[in-house]
């Protein structure tokens, strides 16, 4: 089937486009991008004027929970949530059960993803066998099976030596090492940011430097080896300072931040009666100075990507005491509205910068296709309705889990549709008439 997206508002900073263009899609690939393209047998699709077409968004940090914890999420439900959230691809962390530390687990994930037939799934392999921090995994094998990066996420890469060897070894395959930066001794049994709120709520604290100490270590390793290190879910202003300094001297370090860390602060722990376990995540919600720093890092370019750290947990687990409930919140279905509302409409960044953070940079860091609407590339498109107001309704999530602190929030900025390889993976009927698209 041939589709001609006629006079669509395109935002594609990599291609230098920010205006009205036609996009011709043939057999799932972008055939041409230009103006006044001829229809010649194509189905002509005109999007409402309020819609914006961007290269497909890539969430480089999600937990799909399969294999092993299918009661929290499956690859089918997680990818459906991703599509509904405007993501055309996700990179899934290896802390499943079993850990994705062998090609057979990677192959299983990709098989399930193909069966689900929704968005693209890029597995991230473990740095160490079982993520135990001892032996390197068979990286070449993982790479051949389809892994795009390495991480022991959920825990930090255990030692400086292991980090060094992992970065050196992974560099042979062009894979970044993504680190969950946290000094285990400083984190201790903390459950919340070490600040005034946790101090008064009587919750054990995790100080910002528990993160930045490990960020500093990893930057030193990247500098020493010349390899690539990516800081997962950065939350502390001290970490940002380290990343900025590293970048200034040319170290190959990149960083992501989650929507909750640039939107919420520790104050959320005391709201709604206090101790809402949907405000418990790791790294924790930090102080206003940290939140503001993350926003500034997104604006000035020192932060490369926005990723959700989508961490589904069953309601029964989140019904435990704050100390005992698991860390993490879901993020796939709230990220884009939060970004549009809190970053774009708030005047902090423009749409082109948002597209860099959600599409171009994740594609570049992971070395995966996409990030731009290029002729000959798969037609992965995120269609936004930036001015449409949405109310977050956790009960309507495609994800199997509803652990979000954003339930009931009204945000300006919606996902209108998600197109993966020229196929419509999701349409928001409120923003776009499904009949106006294609099958």
């Amino acid at each position, binding site marked *: 089937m041939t589709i001609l997206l006629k006079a669509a508002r395109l935002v594609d900073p990599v291609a230098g486009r920010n205006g009205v263009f036609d996009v011709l899609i043939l057999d799932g690939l972008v055939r041409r991008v230009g103006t006044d393209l001829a229809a010649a047998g194509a189905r002509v699709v005109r999007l409402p004027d309020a819609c914006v077409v961007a290269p497909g968004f890539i969430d480089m940090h999600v937990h799909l929970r399969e294999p092993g914890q299918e009661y929290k999420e499956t690859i089918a439900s997680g990818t459906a949530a991703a599509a509904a959230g405007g993501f055309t691809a996700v990179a899934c962390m290896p802390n499943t059960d079993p850990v994705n530390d062998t090609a057979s687990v990677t192959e299983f994930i990709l098989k399930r993803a193909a069966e689900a037939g929704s968005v693209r799934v890029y597995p991230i392999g473990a740095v160490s066998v079982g993520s135990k921090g001892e032996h390197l995994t068979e990286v070449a094998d993982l790479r051949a099976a389809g892994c795009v990066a390495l991480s022991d996420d959920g825990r930090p890469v255990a030692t400086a030596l292991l980090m060094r060897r992992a970065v050196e070894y992974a560099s042979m395959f062009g894979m970044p090492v993504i680190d969950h930066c946290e000094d285990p001794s400083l984190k201790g049994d903390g459950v919340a940011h070490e600040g005034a709120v946790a101090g008064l709520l009587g919750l054990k604290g995790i100080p910002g430097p528990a993160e930045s100490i490990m960020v500093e270590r990893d930057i030193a390793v990247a500098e020493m080896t010349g390899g690539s290190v990516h800081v997962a879910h950065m939350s502390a202003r001290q970490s940002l300072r380290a990343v900025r300094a590293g970048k200034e001297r040319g170290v190959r370090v990149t960083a992501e931040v989650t929507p909750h860390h640039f939107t919420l602060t520790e104050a959320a722990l005391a709201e709604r009666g206090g101790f809402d376990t949907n405000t418990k995540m790791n790294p924790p919600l930090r102080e206003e100075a940290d939140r503001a720093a993350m926003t500034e890092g997104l604006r000035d370019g020192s932060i490369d990507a926005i990723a959700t750290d989508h961490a589904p947990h069953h309601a029964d687990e989140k019904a435990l*005491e*704050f100390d005992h409930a698991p860390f993490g919140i879901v993020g796939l279905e709230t990220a884009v509205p939060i970004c549009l509302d809190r970053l774009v409409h708030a005047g902090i960044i423009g749409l082109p910068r948002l597209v860099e953070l959600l599409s171009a940079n994740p594609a570049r860091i992971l070395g995966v296709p996409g990030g731009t609407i290029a002729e000959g590339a798969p037609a992965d498109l995120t269609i936004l309705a930036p001015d449409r107001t949405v109310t977050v309704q956790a009960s309507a999530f495609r994800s199997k889990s509803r652990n979000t602190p954003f339930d009931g929030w009204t945000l300006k900025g919606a996902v209108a549709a998600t197109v993966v390889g020229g196929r419509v993976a999701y349409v928001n009927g409120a923003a776009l008439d499904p009949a106006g698209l294609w099958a």
Partner: protein
Amino acid sequence: MSTATTLRSRHLLGIAGLEPDEIDLILDTALAMKEIATRPIKKVPTLRGRTIMNLFFEASTRTRMSFELAEKRLSADTLGMTTSGSSMSKGETLADTARTLEAMAPDMIVMRHGASGAPHQLARICRASIINAGDGMHEHPTQALLDAFTIREHKGRLGGLRVAIVGDLAHSRVLRSNARLLTRMGASVVACGPATLVPPGLEALGVRVTTSMDAAVDGADVVMMLRVQHERMHGLYFPSVREYFTLYGLTPARLARAASDAIVMHPGPMNRGVEIDSAVADGPWSVILDQVANGVAVRMAVLYLLAGGDERADASAA
């Protein structure tokens, strides 16, 4: 001076939710309750037919017995459960525990729990009134109320007093509730402990923090000592009991820096020779046993006032 005639919430989760007039109301009511303990028959029918569950998910002797005595003196039907660890250790969520107990229709649940916020989570599920008998490192509101009652008994007021609270600040729910209550009632509070045991956020309550015990005790009207759980300190908060006592132990010599009529308090159980010298604990300054006696009266007041609030809620719903 109190203007409140009822408590605004049907739960007592912490001092954080109480206004000054409600604190006065509880303390004034406790004064009437205290008289009951002087009678030959120490029992009134006020809560007859009411069911109170005492759920202690963490070991407790004095608080549990104090609540039980308060309940019995008000003629409530009481039953108790003491278990160690969280609901989770029994394979049950806190929410399920709450719903199970709720199905037995108690009027009030008195709860002690090792996790901060557990009673707050329970209160979102339960219809019964929840009384926090200590949650993790967060709050212990009836302790702060009985402390305030005891201070008022000896000093006639709370406002304008200088109160030093000394010891393991970081892990203490007694500190957090007392700091909230005393600052709200106009006392000047200084908290003192080693820098390793000072939690962030105390300044936000208007509490002055110092690591010098001499500075803290200087001119104090009230010296409140906190228990140090030295067996849990693993040598990382302070090097030894010996050195702790040298720096933060309350001795007669150190107490000489306080006001001449200063009183000494301790929520118990005391570690003699760790945070307090026996000469002080048993000396003329000590009001530690008054605190225990007043605990029953204050808890009677809280139970009585919360039960009254419940009646009105039922009446307005009907």
